[in-house]
């Protein structure tokens, strides 16, 4: 981890969506999509953001890029507040923060050639002459394992894996410092998935890129992440160095999640009983710990207050502390 201030600081970030109902579409409540999230990402580091559908991980990613306006809280990128940046400041910041999306079929404009798709960010930001831009696009395509001749082809002529390479090339066009990758390999076949993961790891080393890697696939996250944050119902319930979190999960939800992954080894069976029930609605989250209605360790105190993120029992106290939001973390 590099010294000095982290690249990205997210502080108590909240994103609510109003729920409207009734005759005059009056506001009747809020969807608490992101509920007070705090973390940092250092240059060249990968933070894996894990959770199930509806936990707010994608909204969190979008709010950091300010594709969504935050309800409250701060997002500092190199010390500049993204959340309150003016249009011109935001334009600058967006050069440094880029995104890769899940679906390589819908995230590329079918009417544009691959060359145009990758060149567009360069054009928007006025980087060099057209000839220089095309030269750069050619180099980018080669960097991601495609060839310069593919410049004039359309997305439909490419396979899923190749399209995702185009998505990576587009994200890299402006030499960003942080890439937010939202389920970048979930739509890909196993053999192609490992190619894209290898590519992302290689690019990170070459360019000192930081990633926020959003995924529901824990085995992929474990492979690629330095730190890992587990989200449940809009909150981070556990965060820490990836190896630490996997070796000593300190939140009951993390344990269930790790235990629920089928292991590609028929001699080993899944370790835990499946979680009962379903995640509660983020419109009316339960009082206290959001996980208590499904937690086998829950006691009365769990219903009283939201537990803060505190050092886990095995926290070694390094640069990246291991934190868990569970009042019984020392007992389980």
């Amino acid at each position: 981890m590099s010294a000095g201030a982290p690249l990205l600081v997210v502080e108590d970030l909240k994103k609510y969506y109003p729920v409207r109902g009734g005759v005059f579409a009056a506001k009747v409540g809020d969807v608490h999509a992101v509920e007070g999230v705090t973390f940092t990402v250092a240059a060249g580091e990968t933070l894996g953001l894990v959770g199930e559908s509806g936990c707010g991980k994608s909204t969190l990613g979008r709010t950091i890029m300010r594709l969504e306006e935050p309800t409250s809280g701060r997002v500092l990128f190199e010390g500049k507040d993204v959340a309150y940046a003016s249009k011109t400041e935001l334009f600058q910041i967006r050069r440094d923060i880029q995104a890769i999306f899940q679906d390589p079929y819908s995230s590329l404009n079918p009417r544009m050639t691959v060359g145009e798709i990758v060149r567009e960010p360069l054009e928007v930001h006025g980087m060099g002459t057209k000839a220089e831009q095309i030269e750069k696009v050619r180099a980018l395509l080669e960097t991601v394992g495609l060839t310069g001749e593919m410049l004039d082809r359309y997305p439909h002529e490419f396979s899923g894996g190749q399209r995702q390479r185009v998505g990576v090339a587009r994200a890299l066009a402006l030499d960003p410092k942080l890439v937010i990758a939202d389920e970048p390999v979930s739509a890909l076949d196993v053999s192609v998935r490992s190619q894209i993961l290898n590519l992302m790891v290689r690019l990170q080393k070459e360019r000192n890129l930081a990633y926020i890697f959003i995924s529901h696939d824990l085995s992929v996250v474990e492979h690629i992440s330095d730190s890992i944050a587990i989200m449940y119902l809009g909150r981070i319930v556990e965060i820490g160095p990836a190896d630490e979190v996997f070796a000593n999960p300190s939140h009951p939800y993390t344990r269930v999640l790790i235990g629920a992954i089928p292991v590609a080894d028929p001699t080993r069976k899944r370790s835990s009983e499946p979680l009962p029930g379903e995640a509660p609605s983020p419109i009316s989250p339960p009082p206290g710990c959001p996980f208590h209605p499904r937690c086998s360790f829950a006691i009365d105190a769990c219903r009283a207050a939201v537990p803060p993120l505190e050092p886990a029992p095995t926290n070694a106290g390094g640069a990246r502390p291991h934190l868990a939001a569970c009042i019984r973390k020392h007992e389980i």
Partner: protein
Amino acid sequence: MALLEIDDLAIGFQTEAGLLRAVDGVSLRLEKGRTLGLVGESGCGKSVTASSILRLVPSPPGKYLGGQIRFNGVDILALPASELPKIRGKDIAMIFQDPMTSLNPVFTIEKQLGEVLALRFGLDKHAARARSVEMLGTVGIPEPEQRIGAYPHELSGGMKQRVMIAMALMCEPQLLIADEPTTALDVTVQAQVLNLIRALQQRMGAAVLFITHDMGVVAEMCDEVAVMYAGRIVEQGNVFAIFKDAQHPYTKGLLRSLPRKGGAKKAELPTIEGVVPSLLNPPAHCRFADRCWKRKRLPETDQKRCFSEDPKLRPAGESFAACHFPVGGEQL
């Protein structure tokens, strides 16, 4: 006689570019009470094979080009269309990947389950309702008396998949075809659904044909595995044998490209280079030869064989592999 016997099945699709041979000579056996995993990547023909068992391949553009599917000795492909409803949903039930689209959005759950019971067992409305409520309870839907009046959009993805499973199992089928039943679900919900399928299978003694691309799910659920590549079965055998010592280079490559638990962080994952051959005009030799890591290690004279002869499925190690030079103990 096995419960399900597929012999040399071939299915094509008439496309503008010509006849696409999606399934090209597939043979399978499935015994009563056993679970067979049909594995492979997008476009390998696994879903087409599965739907053909219920003659669900749309025709046109689909076309049965040859082969036999015998269920309890009866050739399904030779049955007149009027006989099909006697098999569909009664002796053979199917669960699809996407529970969002496989339920009818304009009818309540009660109506949809009731229809099945009326057709299969001739139950009247009251009896059907009682049986439906009981079954919804069995598949783990809370408050089944209330939920039975719900429309599909009022249920979550996991709940809809449970309704589909309830519908499939209410008929007490001898064969359950599950086509990626948990792919659209979260891991904790997936764990619940897999447990449910297994528990109900054990109780009813049904055979299960499990179509998936997830090697973890295969390892957990299946007794036997058949691996498909480009419309063919390239390897088949006992689940332990396949995961321990896969004999086809493709199977071996697939298994090795998964990130391993506790594996070296950000280490380069083995990949399978290249792309699947076009099924419009598949090569007359081994379809994997182009991409094969094992072939590249062979002396020139042996490689010629990979590019001239079409390998047939034959015993290799503890499984069956369609390869001239099975892996043996070699590592990738």
